[in-house]
């Protein structure tokens, strides 16, 4: 009986949303002193603040032609990564991570989440609503830097450049504030895209919010057996 309860508990923990978390020390560079951007990259449950191992991913700025270097770190007792980038000119910079596929045995699927963060520097704000051109991507419809807690965030999910209709978008707060959830259902908020691929969400607390539009497509093999791939178009937004 104890074994069954333990197994159920473990599954319940595992089933909460995985997020490839990509958080920077700022989303808005106002002066030279802030121009050294530092990134934390980890594979975690952001609300519960528990982690998983993240194999070495690749980090880019603006396109796959500009790859950043990585340094290994530890997040919630698991392997994670850090990166840095020095912003030298005014502009809107789009950073994104390309991870290795992660096999999730409890859900019998592979997970490939590609998160992005948009950073404005030196007052220039043009271009935040333009896609990078990823296969699965969230395009913000609300200026993604300079948001307050309580603001409505709207985004459009694109799949191969077209609006992704009726897609689930999971939302979690990076809960460094130790907020307690009233029930398990409150940990991951879920919304769906409309006929134009658009979703809306009010961020009711300050901090980093992760949005993960999940599209199941393709298969990968694990120990000779094929499993579906959960492709995630992720975006991290900071509310002040």
């Amino acid at each position: 009986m104890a074994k069954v309860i333990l197994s159920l508990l473990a599954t319940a923990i595992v089933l909460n949303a995985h997020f490839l978390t990509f958080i920077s020390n700022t989303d808005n560079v106002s002066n030279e002193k802030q121009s050294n951007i530092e990134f934390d990259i980890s594979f975690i449950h952001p609300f519960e603040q528990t982690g998983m191992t993240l194999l070495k991913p690749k980090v880019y700025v603006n396109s796959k032609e500009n790859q950043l270097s990585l340094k290994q770190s530890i997040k919630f007792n698991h392997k994670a990564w850090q990166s840095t980038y020095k912003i030298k000119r005014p502009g809107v910079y789009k950073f994104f991570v390309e991870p290795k596929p992660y096999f999730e045995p409890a859900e019998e699927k592979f997970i490939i989440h590609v998160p992005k963060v948009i950073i404005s520097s030196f007052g220039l704000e043009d271009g935040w609503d333009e896609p990078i051109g990823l296969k699965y991507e969230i395009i913000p419809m609300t200026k993604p830097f300079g948001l307050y807690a309580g603001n409505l965030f709207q985004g459009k999910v694109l799949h191969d450049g077209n609006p992704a209709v009726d897609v689930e978008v999971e939302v979690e707060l990076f809960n460094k504030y130790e907020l307690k959830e009233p029930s398990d259902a409150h940990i991951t908020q879920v919304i769906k895209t409309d006929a134009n691929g658009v979703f809306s969400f009010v961020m009711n607390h300050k901090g980093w919010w992760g949005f993960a539009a999940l599209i199941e497509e393709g298969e990968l093999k694990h120990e000779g057996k094929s499993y579906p791939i959960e492709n995630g178009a992720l975006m991290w937004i900071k509310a002040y």
Partner: protein
Amino acid sequence: MKHLLFVSFLISLCFAHKVNLFISNEGENIEIYSYFANGTACKNCTLLIKNDEKIILEDKLNKEGIYNYKSEYKNIEVIVDASGGHIVKKSFYISQIKHEDIKEYKQKEQEDKYLKIILGLFILLIFFYILKRFKK
């Protein structure tokens, strides 16, 4: 209430046109770049450069909102006036000043100025000479 709404509208309008100033220093050159949040350049905006409250340069930015400048002072204050009450100013410290290079640059600038004056006078002389010939 109407007045309040009007004032808040004006404030939001002012912010939407907030002018930014980015100054970078590579070697001897100081690039002054002024722009609006939407990426539009501060075209032909008035530029003032001061040192110790004294104006050392008054000019206009180019169509890209850029001005390249060589300073002989380590501490300068850059002011860009986009008109309509949109002014931005920034103090800037220049670490790499080689005074000899600056002297050479200033000397060349002065020589160029004299050359232009001589050339202008020469063109005027030719013009009057041709005019005299035609009168005859």
